[in-house]
């Protein structure tokens, strides 16, 4: 669930017609002063972080003059709250509160319907209030095909004793909240407190809105950097990884860092899972074995080899790890040779020196393990492949043994060298990369294994040189699945004439930075 800051949530509420206090966002004390001058004191200044209970930690302060606002702002900006540095303050005109309420809409997985939760008592400690005063809480399922018109809200609120103008304003607010919830693909949308002011207005004083990760693509205007639930800002590497996932709908790639700087003295490993349940189970096995994981990664849902390759390259951008562990459920339906090819391409390029245990059990596991064994001789480190009959615990033990045998090497991040295509190279675009074939090398090739290696019939021979057998446009649209089979076959038996370039924007610069820091 992608979280929105209060100021972003309020923008949505305002666009949906719900009343919010007058205000603006300040990035500097000077701006806080100017906003206060414009609004006229008294104002409230609120830190913009993803945290509940901001008032208790002194993150909500009142100011009676522009100068005071400036002072408060300089004290609040830059402080650390949980994992966040406060970068923004919301400065708003102070409201005169008569009564505090609560309104929220969530998704009830049981009934498969949105559900309105309304409380006639609101404010801080709403969860305790709900336990102590169940009579104040009202819940109501909403049919998405019917929506939540104002008359339905009025019917509910009348039962709770609301009357007259307040009843009308409140029902309009609830109906609009539901509209905002639907329109922005929210997982939850809450206003707490929803207040009735002394002069009879219904105003949203604070809000929490989360957006469905899977629908963020429909709302580019929200400026959500990474559509995932984080309790801290994303790391640079996570941003790079997310860009890979965002642009490639084939299979799933998830990358989350536990630490940005794995301590080489500790037992950190790069973790590469497959599938939610299988990854969890595999993670348990390595943690039990005394390892720490630098990152949690999941590539699943039948990802192409190119996606697994990119995941491995990103995992290998973490210095300080002492091993690489890949494991899923063990009985995967996805074609495991894709994972094997992606992994060996990354391992060969980076010439890794830390051992890797890769449990690629399931569909085509024999082929996957064979690929790992064949190419392990081109990789300095020990690489072992396992299948469905080898438990994650056994594989975790193997990794520990290999690390010991190898003298416990610490991973060194390698710079990314730009590929310089030879003159007159034959090339075509794929969905996320580019295939280069050096036909001058092909001229000397007798093996001619590349065309057979392509099980999708993308390549054919023309005058003894491999060329596209399909329209270039189709290759670029995904007919070439980026399975990497031609490149690896040519590497092994041909003249190393094929190079598949799979760019990862930002990774080259990131690795350069890491290398510089390490000096």
């Amino acid at each position, binding site marked *: *669930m992608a979280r929105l800051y209060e100021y972003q949530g309020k923008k949505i509420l305002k666009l949906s017609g719900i009343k919010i206090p007058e205000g603006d966002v300040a990035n500097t004390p000077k701006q806080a002063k100017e906003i206060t001058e414009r609004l006229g004191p008294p104002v409230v200044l609120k830190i913009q972080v*993803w945290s*509940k209970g901001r008032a208790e930690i002194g993150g909500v302060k009142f100011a009676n003059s522009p100068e005071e606002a400036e002072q408060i702002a300089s004290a609040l900006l830059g402080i650390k709250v949980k994992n966040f540095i406060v970068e923004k303050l919301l400065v708003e005109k102070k409201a005169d509160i008569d009564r505090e309420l*609560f309104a*929220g*809409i*969530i*998704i*009830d*997985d*049981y009934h*498969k*319907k*949105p*559900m309105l*939760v309304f409380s006639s008592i609101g404010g801080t400690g*709403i*969860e305790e209030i*709900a336990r102590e005063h169940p009579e104040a809480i009202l*819940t109501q399922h909403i049919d*998405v*095909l019917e929506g939540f018109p104002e008359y339905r809200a009025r019917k509910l609120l009348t039962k709770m004793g609301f009357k007259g103008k307040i009843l009308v304003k409140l029902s309009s607010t609830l109906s609009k909240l539901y509209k905002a919830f*639907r329109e922005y*693909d929210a*997982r*939850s949308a*809450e206003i707490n407190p929803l207040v009735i002011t002394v002069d009879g207005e219904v105003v949203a004083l604070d809000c*929490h809105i*989360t957006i*469905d*990760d*899977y*629908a963020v*693509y*429909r709302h580019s205007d929200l400026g959500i950097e990474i559509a995932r639930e984080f*309790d801290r800002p994303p790391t640079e590497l996570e941003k790079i990884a997310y860009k890979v996932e965002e642009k490639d*709908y*084939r299979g*799933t790639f998830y990358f989350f860092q536990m630490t940005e700087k794995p301590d080489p003295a500790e037992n950190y490993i790069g973790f590469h899972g497959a*599938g*939610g*349940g*299988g990854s*969890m*189970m595999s993670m*348990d096995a390595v943690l039990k074995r005394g390892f720490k994981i630098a990152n949690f990664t999941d590539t*699943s849902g*039948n990802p192409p080899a190119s996606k697994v390759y990119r995941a491995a390259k990103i995992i290998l951008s973490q210095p300080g790890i002492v091993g690489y562990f890949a494991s899923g*459920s*063990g*009985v*995967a*339906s*996805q*074609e495991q040779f894709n994972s094997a090819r992606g992994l060996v391409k990354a391992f060969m390029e980076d010439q890794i020196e830390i051992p890797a245990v890769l449990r690629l059990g*399931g*569909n*085509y596991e024999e082929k996957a393990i064979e690929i790992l064994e064949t190419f392990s001789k081109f990789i300095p480190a020990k690489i072992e492949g396992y299948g*469905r009959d080898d*438990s994650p615990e056994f594989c975790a033990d193997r990794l520990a043994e290999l690390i010991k045998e190898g003298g416990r090497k610490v991973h060194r991040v390698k710079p990314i060298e730009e590929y310089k295509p030879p003159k007159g190279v034959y090339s075509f675009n794929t969905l996320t990369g580019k295939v280069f074939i050096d036909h001058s090398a092909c001229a000397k090739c007798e093996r001619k294994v590349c065309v057979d290696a392509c099980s999708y019939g993308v390549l054919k021979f023309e005058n003894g040189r491999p060329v596209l057998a399909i329209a270039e446009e189709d290759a670029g649209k995904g007919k070439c699945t980026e399975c990497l089979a031609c490149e690896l076959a040519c590497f092994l038996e041909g003249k190393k004439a094929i190079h598949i370039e799979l760019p990862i924007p930002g990774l080259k610069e990131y690795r350069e930075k890491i290398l510089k820091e390490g000096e």
Partner: protein
Amino acid sequence: MAILINEKTRVLVQGITGREGRARTKLMKGYGTNVVAGVTPGKGGQEVEGVPVFDSVYEALEKVGEINASAIFVPAPLVKSAALEAIDAGIKLLLLVPDRVPIHDVLEIAAHAERRGAKFIGPNTLGVLSPGRAVLGMIGGRPETAKQWFNKGDIGVSSRSGGITSAISYYISRAGFGLSTIVHVGGDAVVGLPHPDIMKLFQQDPETKMMVMFGEIGTTQEERVAEMIEKGEITKPVVAFIGGKAAKEGTRFSHAGAIVEGGRGSYASKVEKLKKAGAYIAESLMDIPKVVAEVRKKHGLD
């Protein structure tokens, strides 16, 4: 018998000409599933694995007659439209395979399905497989592996993780037991047929003698199964394994969720409620065959 799918079920594949659609049609046909038609708008007239392709679900129904289930393999943003077309055409069982279907789309699909008396499995599911009969979706990967991995028998499997569905079923088969039907209910927060619905179907299926359930933290599916056991709605033995013990409880952002769910959804809550209701808890995935053997002995199932 089995549940949801057998060799007679007449299956439609939506998105049959895509990468996944083609590969899985090959699996389904090869395993013995009765795939009668495929749909990709704009590609009518072709054939995939010997299956005729039509431009719309309506046309497919007109040309091939009765269709009992549709497996949907279109990209996530297009799932809603494909599902609503199938529901509108009168198909009563849908399988939504793709991952990353927006949850509000799922809510709309659910609302239409409810009105038309249709059911859906998923989204984000590998599908359903009844050993020796038929597979709907992509469990097993290829016909050869699917045939090799899963034995026919009397244990029903329901799981929230795709890989674990296959793993549990494979390890149970390797231990010498057999399966009536295995179901991946889907990995998302809102799924068409969650554990309680699948357990109910297994309870009614004369061929199923016991169930194995893989649960995860989040949602209240497992707690509701516990309630069904307590109420006597489920009387067949249930072996449960809950994943995510090591996962730290996320800091909740939503008050409304906490107000409504109370303490439910956590690992501890699920295990405690299931134990209290009389389900058998396996401590690890690899322990499941052992627990299954003990339960079968205790209940005289061999």
